[in-house]
């Protein structure tokens, strides 16, 4: 009984965290249950640890990325192998959960796979943080909930909305948080991040960050996989905090009380999440409260997920100042969010060359991604990492719950290297298709955009290779990216033909799903300010950057002709630094 309830909560909570970042759904216009496809198959794989040893008795989750998709859980056997069989065709996200371990993917690895694929997954032993929490008398603080909050990942990039969950201190005040990803953390006793409540003895207290501070001056703890930081002792301050409470109204829906609404409390100065609260219906509204909040400037935001044909709703940021007393009666109103819907088609026309690889993917085995165009948006709810969904069998897809912002859609990340994105259009004023690849799609508040069209063509080429230094033995600059720039004059403005990839730590790169044609290759450093952003956008999304890349690529003139279905391997790209003069700058 207890386990059942707790795990349900965990799921609920995880869902609401995701939901707080971004919600998405899929077209729900197929009333009838999906029939199992004739081409059902299995996804097989193997789970190993860092040294290649099999991981047995590990749970593997195989989840279709559509709303009505099959979801399955399988366990690995003694050899670390798993089989998820009898899967209808579609694209499936493969994840693993093993206590104390973290699934670590190589940067190029895809999360999604389709029946017939074999998947190798590597689990690394998670890091641990341990210490003792005492009060000002030096006595142990017993039963206070502990959280480790990831602030930067192992690459030093800032992370938005990631929490290591809380265990309680024991009778000696000792805590141990484990199974953590590599990265930099702050550790907090009595945090409200996992939900705010008055129920525990410390509910009213302001949280104390390691070593004995507020969030602003919290000490940071950096962890490697398999590492352990001990002695992360906290002197608990036990200072009284205040309550922020109020209610949420949603004029856009009458029966919204049945949907879940999450409320977040954020520091106004740096947007870090301070607390998360659940809400309960109260009359025609929903009530919320945060407890144990210290003096300071905050924002409160609320968000409701999509509900049936409704795209979800969110509030503006409501500023709240706490000055030595409780703040009550905070009113939040929800306004409808927008959506982008469209259709993806696979062009099976004969003008394409068919590559002799796997059988052609079904449209429900492709993926469509969305990300915000504006990563510096003042509205943090519109900042999220790229989200992938799978179109349904008719190729229809919809991204729901979109705050007003400019968005970029893509379908380049295919499960099959034989296909490339040939066209991306949106219905123009007179319903004529207008190219949507060169700039983002702007969603105004509550706007529903329909008529996005993706066309995928066959015969894509790919290049795999390595960047080498200009002079032998010299080292390469960091943050290097390889760009493919269209060399044919009539493709010069085709954004879909600007393709770029990060250079890995072994100097390798991989450019796939490339339209056949003539290109220039160019290796360039990602500007430092870009690399610090939560989401690195393709440089070619910016018109000025495209022009700059084209100018530089033409000058260095490293050209390649890619024939349909050509697979270039072991390509050596010599890095030449940019010529003196102004670097192409983003505007």
């Amino acid at each position: 009984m207890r386990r059942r309830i707790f795990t349900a909560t965990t799921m609920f909570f995880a869902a609401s965290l995701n939901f707080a970042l971004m919600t998405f759904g899929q077209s729900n216009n197929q009333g009838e249950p999906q029939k199992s496809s004739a081409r059902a198959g299995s996804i097989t794989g193997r789970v190993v640890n860092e040294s290649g040893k099999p991981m047995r008795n590990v749970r593997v989750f195989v989840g279709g990325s559509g709303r009505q998709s099959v979801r399955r859980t399988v366990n690995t056997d003694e050899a670390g192998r798993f089989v998820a069989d009898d899967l209808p065709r579609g694209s499936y996200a493969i994840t693993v959960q093993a206590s104390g371990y973290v699934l670590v993917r190589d940067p190029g690895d895809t999360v999604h796979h389709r029946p017939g694929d074999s998947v190798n997954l590597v689990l690394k032993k998670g890091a641990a943080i341990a210490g003792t929490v005492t009060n000002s008398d030096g006595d142990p603080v017993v039963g206070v909930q502990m959280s480790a909050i990831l602030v930067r990942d192992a690459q030093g990039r800032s992370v938005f909305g990631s929490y290591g969950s809380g265990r309680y201190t024991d009778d000696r005040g000792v805590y141990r948080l484990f199974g953590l990803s590599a990265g930099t953390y702050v550790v907090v006793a009595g945090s409200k991040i996992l939900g705010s409540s008055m129920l525990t003895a410390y509910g009213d207290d302001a949280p104390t960050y390691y070593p004995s501070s507020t969030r602003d001056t919290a000490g940071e703890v950096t962890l490697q996989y398999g590492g352990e930081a001990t002695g992360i002792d906290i002197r608990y301050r036990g200072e009284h905090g205040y309550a922020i409470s109020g209610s949420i109204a949603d004029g856009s829906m009458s029966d919204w009380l049945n949907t879940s609404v999450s409320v977040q409390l954020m520091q106004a100065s740096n947007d870090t999440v301070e607390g998360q609260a659940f809400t309960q219906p109260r009359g025609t509204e929903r009530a919320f409260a945060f407890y144990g909040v210290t003096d300071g400037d905050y924002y409160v935001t609320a968000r409701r997920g999509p509900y049936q044909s409704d795209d979800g709703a969110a509030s503006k940021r409501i500023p709240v100042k706490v000055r030595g007393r409780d703040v009550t009666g905070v009113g939040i109103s929800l306004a409808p969010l927008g959506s982008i819907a469209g259709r993806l088609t696979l062009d099976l026309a004969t003008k394409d060359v068919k590559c002799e690889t796997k059988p052609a993917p079904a449209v429900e085995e492709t993926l469509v991604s969305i990300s915000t165009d504006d990563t510096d948006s003042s509205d943090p709810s519109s900042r999220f990492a790229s989200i992938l969904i799978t179109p349904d069998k008719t190729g229809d897809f919809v991204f729901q719950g979109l705050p007003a912002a400019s968005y970029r859609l893509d379908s380049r990340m295919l499960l099959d290297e034989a296909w490339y994105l040939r066209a991306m259009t949106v219905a123009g004023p007179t319903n004529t298709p207008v190219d949507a690849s060169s700039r983002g799609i702007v969603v105004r508040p509550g706007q529903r955009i329909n008529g996005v069209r993706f066309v995928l063509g066959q015969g894509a080429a790919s290049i795999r290779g390595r960047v080498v230094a200009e002079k032998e033995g010299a080292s390469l600059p960091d943050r290097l990216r390889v760009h493919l720039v269209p060399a044919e004059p009539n493709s010069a403005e085709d954004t879909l033909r600007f393709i770029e990839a990060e250079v890995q730590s072994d100097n390798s790169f991989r450019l796939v799903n490339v339209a056949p044609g003539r290109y220039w290759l160019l290796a360039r450093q990602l500007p430092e300010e870009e690399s610090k952003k939560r989401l690195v956008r393709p440089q070619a999304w910016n018109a000025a950057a495209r022009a700059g890349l084209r100018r530089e690529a033409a000058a260095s003139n490293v050209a390649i002709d890619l024939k349909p279905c050509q697979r270039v391997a072991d390509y050596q790209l010599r890095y030449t630094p940019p010529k003196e003069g102004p670097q192409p700058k983003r505007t």
Partner: protein
Amino acid sequence: MHNVSRLLPFVVLMSSVSNTPAYPLARQSNDSKSPSGSISGRVTSNGKPVPRVPVILTQNPFDGEGKPVARTTTDQDGRFRIANVPAGSFNLSAFAPAFVFDERSSWGQDGKRMTISPGEAVEGVDVSLKRGGVITGKVSDSAGRPVVEERVTLTMIDEQGRQRGGFDPLGWEGAQTDDRGIYRIFGVPEGRYIASVGQSPSQWNSWAVRGNAYYPLTFNPGVDDASKPLS
């Protein structure tokens, strides 16, 4: 009937699922006109004061809403005073997870039940605590590898070996093994217990997104029946 104070963190979680309020935002006072009462007393352990212990007054029976009627913290002499108590029936408990109540009359009866009439001042309430026992150990699989994030269950048994109920530690994770396979259950009342891990096949369910795949029910010290108690 379970120990309310130990159940508190758990009730938070349950509330968020079942949609019952985890905290009332405006508790309707039963009768705002009737004069309010007060409760004062002392928290001790072995006759010595227990300072800085949270004292919590909850509605009796526990109303599921969760928010305590009142909370305070003992001073350096272990003394506390709760004012503005409305008339009603309450449970007075101290949030001291490492302790057990001295006067435990039967299994699971924790805290003091008290009924307050309008305007009544109850003084000299003695809350006497006893440091609870600690059961700690390590859980390994047949190959000697630590078993991580697995719950250890304590079952109380009497002299005849009959089961007498379970023990609810602080929160769900209070009885879970860590990444080294180590668990530590504290605040355990005196008695004889059987420690076990895993679940019988009937209990196992695919809901459990966290933690491990299924481990069969195993009793301390690594046998598969409940023959060997700890005490």
